[in-house]
């Protein structure tokens, strides 16, 4: 006996499937989106037009073709995106062999899996609403499938589904807070688990930073526990590049050696708490310059004074940092090191070299040469723009002498080249600069568009000194942040234009970011450490206590639901209003010593009263008529009840 799937149930199922697949549209290739839509539409038509389901061999051919297509598209079937693509295809193809209600069960399991894969791509606040809504829909769908015969109305199902989910949410919270979390991945994550992540790369080729600057993704949030450094001091140090190939910059082996260089720190330290978003890289962004003796756990400083962790940051990470804004980094440089930081490729940018040697020849010291270069950027017609003209082979020559338009990448690159050509050891540092303060949360948000590049030159006795040539051209870039550094005409990314043009929207954005920050800090970052910290407040010290408390709370929760259900499904004898009113009149009669005999019906009883106690006769006759009407009239209505009620109330036997 096959319990065939009704058309209503099938169309509902398709609707839920579309709901569950919808957010994946952005991650899947176009051909797959079209395929999914086509199969869903086909299955709907099969049901509506009563077509036949495709023969097994056709299904097999389609399945194999789809698997092959996914494999060739992603050249694997194991990664996150590929896995999602495969799961979606499987779920949709399952539709083509679905006849009975029971077949839906397998599909429901697949839908839950598809649902969970969304969260590997996005865990923003709205996803919780999406999660609950999807859960309600899938629960309603399951109910529909477990109900044989005619389909229940959608409203009834959704309501019942919502009730069940609402009852499950408290249990979810208990689990969420108390289920012992264990650190780290259980097995290696797929290589593309950070698919689509942007961030600083390990080399700087033209255009890299510009593309970063096109996104407003949050990189990290930071809260200073004491004094807040000035914007000019807020340089977050990322990859350092010391090798130039004529076109782009990269790190040499020396630069990435795990070796702390001597640093002399001056003045007071600054401490801060930094929440990094998952980046997939090992880089920890630290305020320049990190205190070498107070490094966060599991982190090391390399030769370029860049902070890295032991493993890639695949989840949000909070660390406490300490920094000194005044310092002498690497007071001495060996001859070999000096030569290393002076290397420039032969045969490139002859005019720049010539300029630099001209400066060198004018018998001024290194610091004066640095100032001369900065003065050049400031006084000549250099522009800060995110859409610079394309540069050719001698890119630095072209930039300095012809186009004069560019952004931090161009300025730091050409400045570093100039310094090296002039015989001053120099390198390019990338990272983030500035950041936006959120007044609500008293913290700073650093987004991808705060990505920046600057230079460091080595000066005798001062060590590596930060020089930001971009600041010479567009000082507001350094002082007030990226968003104020570019005028509208320069083709700003849309999201920044929006923010600037509407102060209300800006305020709302700030508030929203604050909510997001709380969400990140409390929900998404809820891992082993945070759990231990949080539960310690309640005196729960270790995982066995967590399990104990969790079990007790879960039992109490289910007990509450169970009691509620027992009430709902308890036997209810419908209230007999006629009887209730009749008993009320009997009580009145009992006070005057008249009672109904067990063998007496109402009519006989009232006849006896009329005979033996004529005073009560009229009143009781009225009660009797109303009672009989209410009890035995086929269509009992409110008037009959009211009549009886009045008659009973009016009947006042007196002794």
């Amino acid at each position, binding site marked *: *006996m096959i319990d065939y799937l009704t058309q209503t149930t099938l169309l509902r199922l398709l609707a839920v499937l579309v709901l569950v697949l919808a957010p994946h549209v952005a991650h899947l290739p176009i051909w797959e989106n079209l395929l999914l839509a086509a199969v869903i539409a086909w299955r709907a038509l099969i049901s509506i037009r009563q077509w036949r389901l495709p023969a097994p061999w056709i299904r097999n051919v389609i399945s194999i073709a789809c698997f092959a297509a996914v494999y060739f598209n992603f050249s694997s079937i194991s990664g996150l995106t590929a896995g999602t693509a495969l799961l979606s295809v499987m779920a949709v193809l399952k539709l083509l062999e679905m006849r009975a209600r029971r077949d839906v*069960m397998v599909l429901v*399991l697949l839908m*839950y*899996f598809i*649902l*969970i894969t*969304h*969260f*590997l791509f996005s*865990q923003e606040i709205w*996803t*919780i609403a999406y*999660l609950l809504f999807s*859960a309600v829909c899938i*629960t309603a769908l*399951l*109910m529909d*499938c*477990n*109900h*044989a*015969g005619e389909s*229940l109305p959608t409203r009834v199902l959704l309501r*019942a589904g919502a009730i*069940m989910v609402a*009852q*499950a*949410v*408290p*249990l*979810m919270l208990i*689990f*969420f807070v108390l*289920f012992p*979390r*264990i*650190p780290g*991945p*259980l*097995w290696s*994550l797929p290589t593309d*688990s950070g698919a689509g992540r942007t961030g600083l790369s390990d080399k700087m080729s033209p255009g890299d930073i510009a593309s970063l600057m096109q996104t407003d993704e949050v990189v990290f949030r930071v809260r200073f526990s004491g004094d807040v450094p000035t914007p000019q001091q807020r340089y977050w140090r990322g990859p350092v590049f010391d090798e130039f190939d004529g076109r782009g910059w990269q790190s040499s082996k020396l630069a990435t050696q795990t070796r702390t260089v001597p640093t002399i720190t001056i003045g007071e330290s600054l401490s801060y708490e930094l929440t990094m978003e998952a980046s997939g890289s090992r880089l920890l962004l630290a305020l320049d310059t990190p205190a070498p003796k107070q490094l966060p756990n599991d982190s090391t400083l390399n030769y370029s004074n860049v902070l890295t962790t032991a493993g890639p940051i*695949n*989840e949000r990470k909070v660390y406490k940092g300490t920094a000194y804004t005044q310092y002498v980094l690497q007071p001495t440089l060996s001859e070999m090191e000096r030569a290393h930081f002076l290397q420039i490729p032969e045969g490139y940018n002859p005019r720049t070299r010539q300029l630099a040697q001209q400066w060198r020849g004018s018998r001024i010291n290194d610091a004066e040469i640095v100032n001369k270069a900065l003065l050049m950027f400031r006084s000549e017609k250099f522009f800060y723009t995110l859409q610079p003209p394309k540069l050719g082979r001698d890119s630095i020559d072209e930039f300095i002498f012809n186009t004069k338009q560019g952004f931090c990448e161009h300025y730091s690159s050409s400045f570093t080249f100039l310094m090296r050509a002039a015989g001053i050891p120099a390198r390019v540092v990338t990272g983030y600069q500035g950041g936006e303060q959120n007044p609500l949360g008293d913290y700073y948000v650093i987004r991808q568009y705060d990505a920046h590049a600057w230079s460091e030159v080595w000066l005798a006795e001062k060590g590596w000194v930060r020089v930001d040539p971009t600041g010479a051209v567009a000082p507001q870039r350094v002082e007030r942040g990226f968003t104020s550094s570019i005028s509208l005409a320069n083709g700003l990314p849309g999201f920044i234009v929006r923010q600037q043009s509407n102060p209300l929207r800006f305020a709302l954005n700030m508030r929203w970011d604050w909510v997001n920050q709380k969400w990140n800090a409390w929900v*998404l970052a*809820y*891992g082993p450490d945070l759990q231990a910290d949080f539960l310690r407040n309640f005196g729960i010290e270790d995982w066995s206590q967590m399990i104990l408390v969790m079990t007790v709370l879960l039992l109490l929760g*289910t007990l509450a*639901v*169970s009691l509620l*259900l*027992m009430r*709902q*499904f*308890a*036997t*209810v*004898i*419908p209230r007999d209003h006629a009887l209730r009113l009749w008993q009320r009149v009997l009580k009145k009669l009992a006070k005057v010593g008249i009672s109904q005999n067990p063998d007496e019906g109402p009519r006989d009883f009232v006849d006896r009263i009329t005979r033996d106690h004529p005073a009560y006769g009229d009143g009781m006759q009225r009660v009797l008529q109303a009672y009989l009407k209410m009890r035995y009239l086929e269509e009992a209505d409110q008037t009959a009840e009211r009549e009886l009620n009045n008659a009973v109330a009016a009947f006042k036997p007196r002794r």
Partner: protein
Amino acid sequence: MRFWLIAKIILHPLRYAQERIDAWVLARVKRQPGPIDIPRNRVYIVPTRFGYGFAIMALVMLMGAMNYSNSMAFALTFLLAGLGMICMHHTHANMLNLRMHAGKTRPVFAGEIAHYEIHVENLAKNPRYAIGLAWPKQEANATIGDAPEQGIAVMILTRPTLKRGWQPAGVYSIFTEFPLGLFHAWTWADLDMNCLVYPSPAPPGMELPAVAGVGGHASGGRSGQDEFAGLRNYQRGDTARSIHWKSLPKLQSPMVKQFTETLDRELWLDWNALSHLDTEARLSQLTRWVLEVEELGLAYGLRMPGIVLEPARGETHQHQCLKRLALYDIA
């Protein structure tokens, strides 16, 4: 015999244990005239196959969530775990306080299918969806229905009949997997219901016994067709066969054909006339005759060892005759 039993215990210990437990449980279900109320302590509940699948899926999701340290994945996993726990109570409650009444059973001939009507009454203010009735181990062939709030679901269990006599309904389960199909909640019931099984009629062909007419006629039963005498209004108890269907569309109320034939011609169906057959074959043949004679509209009597039914006609008489035949020699 004993060898096979030992082999079974060794080869399929779980299945053997299961069978023993089932037999033990079924033997202890009390037969009751009804109504039967389903109390809390009589509702059993186990996960279904889908329920186990759901649990495994939740575990896999938990591993995934741990691996990616993904809070939202944890949230979904825990929500599903919560839903599973809640669902158990919903399924259990869906069975609770149901009241079962025995309904009608119509007599059938041996070899036909017996229908047992069972009324499932929902006394609560919540509707109960997808309540099923099934014979033991035949849940796949269950009859499933909804009992509206403060209402009754009329459900029918069917079972083929083999031999004449009373066929009790026996033990069956009342179960539900609503709302999510993760759990199977059930209890056993045995309402005192019996289906009367008439002997299966012998194949037609044997000549009817001669009519012993009071008026002295002695002709074959078939020649004694009655004459049509007109129509009269339908009265309760008239057989469907005697209704004059042709006139039904024209007249609002059904009319019944009347025949002049009365009790002046009688036909005795005699046990002793079939001495060449064995008991069951005789009963079958008599059954066939009862049906044929009733069809012809003759009055007939039944004579069997220890039983004499005076000649009469009509459904009640036919039922009486068939009942005697069904229960002949059955204690």
